[in-house]
């Protein structure tokens, strides 16, 4: 396979959303005055729209270049008008049934995985009081945008990686790293960077564990997203392609100053919130 450079993703301006998501959000827009909806409730289940909102809010035009970390901040800054426009202009993700027989199911699982990761990040941040919960939710929601970009804009390479993961019974991330020479999470970080997201969010999306000690806030956000992602996988909310269990690395516990026993005690609560999030997503 001809290797690809990270730079091929430079031209991406927008990520599509699957039809079920677009239909749900359009329905809400049609039945609710924008005075009554908040961006979070409207797009909290959609990483693509969330990215578009963060991209616009972080543009210099609005006066806070690369400073808006969460959807809540972005929504307060932009107001309902621009958010409505983002919803109306989000492209529809077309399925690729030729490459995958269960494409739609996998896409649905990927979206669900991102929502669960966001929900866990929010819940853990509240339980541990380690980081601003709105920022954790946002980082969790969009942590896998690299997968969406790869799936949509480099579908052949994505298919090779997915097949390799399945054949060798390894994680999609590992298969991605071995195929591309760099982890898929780098694409998430790269997109966040070209779209002007704050450094903190870029590091979190790259799942960057090698941050300087003076960048503890950023490192905590990374660790929290990493932890939430692992928990989502381990509690069977996989991304549609990856079915392997994830091991929670030591640096996560150290960064979050967390004991395994504490984490274990949170699991029932996390399962509960996950069920609620899935029910909301399916409704």
């Amino acid at each position, binding site marked *: 396979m001809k290797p690809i450079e990270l730079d091929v993703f430079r031209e991406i301006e927008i990520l599509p959303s699957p039809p079920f998501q677009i*239909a749900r959000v359009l329905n809400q827009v*049609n039945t609710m005055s924008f005075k009554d909806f908040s961006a979070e409730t409207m797009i909290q289940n959609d990483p693509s729209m969330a990215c578009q909102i963060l991209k616009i809010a972080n543009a210099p035009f609005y006066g806070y270049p690369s400073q808006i970390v969460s959807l809540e901040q972005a929504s307060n800054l932009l107001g309902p008008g621009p958010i409505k426009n983002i919803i109306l202009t989000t492209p529809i993700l077309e399925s690729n049934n030729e490459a995958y027989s269960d494409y739609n199911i996998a896409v649905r699982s990927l979206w669900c995985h991102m929502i669960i990761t966001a929900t866990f990040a929010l819940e853990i941040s509240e339980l541990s009081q380690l980081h601003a919960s709105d920022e954790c939710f946002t980082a969790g929601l969009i942590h896998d945008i690299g997968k969406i970009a790869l799936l949509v804009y480099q579908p052949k390479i994505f298919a090779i990686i997915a097949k390799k993961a399945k054949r060798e019974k390894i994680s999609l991330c590992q298969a991605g790293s071995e195929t591309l020479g760099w982890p898929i999470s780098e694409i998430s970080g790269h997109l966040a960077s070209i779209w002007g997201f704050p450094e903190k969010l870029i590091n979190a999306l790259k799942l960057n564990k090698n941050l300087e000690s003076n960048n503890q806030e950023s490192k905590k956000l990374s660790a929290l997203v990493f932890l939430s992602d692992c928990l989502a996988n381990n509690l069977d909310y996989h991304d549609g392609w990856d079915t392997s269990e994830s091991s929670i690395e030591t640096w996560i516990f150290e960064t979050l100053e967390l004991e395994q026993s504490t984490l274990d005690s949170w699991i029932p609560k996390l399962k509960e919130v996950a069920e609620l999030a899935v029910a909301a997503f399916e409704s």
Partner: protein
Amino acid sequence: MNDTNGAKKDIELATIRDLLKKQNGMLGQSLIFSNHLLYLKKSVSLLDLEEIKRVLVEKLPHILSIRYFTLFLFDKKSNKLDLACHNRPDLPQSMSIAIDDSPVMKEALDHGKYIVEGNYQNSKFFQGKRNSLFQNNFLVCAPLMIENEIVGILNLNDNIKGFFSVGELDFVINITEFLSLTISNALLFEKVEDLSVTDGLTGIKNRQYLENIFASEFSRSLRYKSPLSAILIDVDHFKSINDTYGHQKGDQVLIEIGKVLNVICRAHDTIARYGGEEFVVVLPETNAKGAFPIAERIRDQVQSLSFSNDTKHWNVTISCGIGEIDFEKMKSKDDLLKIADLALYKAKESGRNQTVIG
């Protein structure tokens, strides 16, 4: 297998087509609203409130697809709503209502939120009397606010379809947000303009305003050969009032004289503080003979004013000089003012506290 995949693909394509149609329709509507808003912005980007009202009466019903509207402005001092403009034949040009007298407007203003009633008659706001002017019972009541400051309220009646879609309602909110700013700017401009021609102490017009208005009144009189006179007023012994009782008391005298002038002079007369302790009254359509009793009434009224401090009570008097336009000899308002000034000099020379016609 291929057939199943093909069928799946067809269903999916149909779904995507429907969604695209929906997105397209909503975007199209958004564009139309944006165009309407831009058009209204261009039309109403004015500083003259009267002009803004005129444009609203002309364009608002069409842009919002409604038959009738009323726009009230909030008067903070009286806590009342003043009807600013409307297109309803059953209402007078201007009127004021207490906020408590309209439950629907009161609720909208109290909560800072619009109220939509598809059937006003069945709503809790209905006061038992249906307006026969309206073809349906549709009502939107939207407050005009800037942050938490109330600017006014916009009422929309008789929507042509009988209802508003969510998009149309959002458009109304956009319009009210924009109108709040435009009207507030116009009101501020009016206030600043008024302040720039108002004497800060007495609250009557200042010399700058007088110069302009006097000049235009003089030209008008000269053109139409209509009478015009001016009264020049000077407070007698004002320096000694200041020296004896202090400048604050001197200021109080000037303020009270300003009030007397406001009460006695007619609506179309112009009163102004000319400078120091001098005042001018310009009286259109009035000759010196007609101005004399007015000057005398002012003089009497001022004489009857009583001033005091902790130890003393005193009165003040004024002298008045009247000038009248002379179509043959006068070329500008300064000529007329010169005659009034000479008459004032004579009044002072003759013992003060009197009116002299020049």
